[in-house]
């Protein structure tokens, strides 16, 4: 039996571990063990962070990044779930699309940049596509896998109640594959954020990624790490919200986990 350690101990450790690592880094920088000009002391980053926030310089880049992130994330994941359900349920669709998917999937986004700039320009569309591509595939792969694992008895049950393929997809397949889909969505959340930054680095006019690359190029590492920290905190917060949502939507799979 797995020990059900008190949640508080786990949460405490969860807070303690990053703090301990940061403290160790602080000491290392203080002793001169690492090059301060490349890796600043966490305390200096914190000071910079406070300065950024108190001077109100946080909101505009954050807004830019979030709006790009959400638009791309939502569009791509909805599309991926739809395509994934179709590919998971229909052999013909799978056979048709699989080679294309598997050929595009491993291509690095920077390598796709030339045709993307050629056909989409350097504006928002291109950035959306870059982020969207990164979000799309993990959700797609997990959706297909989840759809394949749906208990055939459930599908047959729905068929005998006269449900057609469409309603079976939405009423049975989708909820039953949801644990898989959510995992894909969580993976994509992290990847999406990474690619937002990359997209802003490639063709930026604002946003956190644009600032990170600016700071990096001008060797203002303290500011750069402050913005990286903001990005990480953003990822953390989004994931937190995501887990909350997951608990609400997937309680039925978690309850089974408890056993009875």
């Amino acid at each position, binding site marked *: 039996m797995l020990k059900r350690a008190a949640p508080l101990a786990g949460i405490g450790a969860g807070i303690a571990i990053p703090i301990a690592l940061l403290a160790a880094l602080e000491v290392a920088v203080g002793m001169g063990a690492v090059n301060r000009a490349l890796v600043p002391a966490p305390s200096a980053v914190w000071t910079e962070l406070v300065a950024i926030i108190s001077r109100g310089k946080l909101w505009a880049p954050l807004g830019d990044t979030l709006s790009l992130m959400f638009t791309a994330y939502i569009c791509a994941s909805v599309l991926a779930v739809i395509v994934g359900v179709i590919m998971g349920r229909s052999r013909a669709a799978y056979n048709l699309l699989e080679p294309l998917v598997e050929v595009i999937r491993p291509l690095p986004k920077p390598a796709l940049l030339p045709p993307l700039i050629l056909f989409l320009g350097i504006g928002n569309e291109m950035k959306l596509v870059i982020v969207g591509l990164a979000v799309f595939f993990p959700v797609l792969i997990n959706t297909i896998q989840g759809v394949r694992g749906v208990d055939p008895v459930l599908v047959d049950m729905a068929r005998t109640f006269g449900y057609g393929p469409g309603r079976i997809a939405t009423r049975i397949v989708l*909820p039953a594959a949801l644990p898989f889909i959510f995992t894909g969505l969580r993976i994509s959340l992290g990847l999406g954020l990474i690619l937002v930054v990359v997209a802003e680095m490639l063709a930026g006019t604002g946003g956190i990624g644009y600032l990170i690359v600016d700071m990096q190029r001008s060797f203002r590492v303290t500011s750069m790490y402050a913005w990286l920290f903001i990005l990480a905190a953003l990822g953390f917060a989004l994931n937190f919200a995501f887990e909350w949502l997951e608990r609400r939507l997937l309680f*039925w799979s978690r309850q089974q986990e408890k056993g009875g």
Partner: protein
Amino acid sequence: MQRGCELTLNSVTKVYSPGTEAEVRALGNITLNVEPGEFLSVVGPSGCGKSTFLQIAAGLIGASGGQVALDGHKVNGPPEGLVYLFQQYTRSLMPWRTVLGNVEFAIEGHRMSRAERRDRCMNFLAMVGLQDFASRYPWQLSGGMQQRVAIARALAAEPRILLLDEPFSSVDALTRSDLHELVLRLWEERGFTAMLVTHDVDEAILLSDRIAVLSHRPSQIVETIPTELPRPRDRIATPELPAFLELRHYLLDQLTKRPAHA
């Protein structure tokens, strides 16, 4: 009241994984006609092909040979008006829906108000004794309770033909008897056709007009025995009839005299 459907199976055969080492010849050659409104039971040894047979009749899986027709129309997918109760009742319940939600699933396509649907389903839940568990989830229920949810759902759909695969295997004697009465009552009221797979000979005799006895794999229909007991049946009186006892004796003899495992 809609009439029950007529189900016709003509020289139906089924081979699983044909041509491989894992080949199993499940159904030998099955020909059977189930009359509209008839109650037919199927008995036979474990693994002989009863579920296979029922699933082919429901259009859930394809036969390897022969024809299946419902009211004269070829079956190649679950037909309208047919409801199937799965032997694996646990797996047929949706864990993300409440008990009531699972029952409502049966009639969500039908045109009626939400309240009406809900009332009707609560009604059926009450019939199987689960009115207090309407808002629980299937995994919070015991095995027998889950089975009753599946029964309520099947009945709530008001089928014209109902296929039941060992629907009462996990409930105690009294509950089972109550469920027999419930199914009989609805069958008499609505006149649907029923086909029941069971291992319980008493159950088969009590409920059916005819009993089909299947042989070992590849299964054939050894005989179909009309029960010829008066209707309406009664759970106390009917089993006491001499004809019942005689038939019971005969069937048990038939079923226990062959080697159990082919």
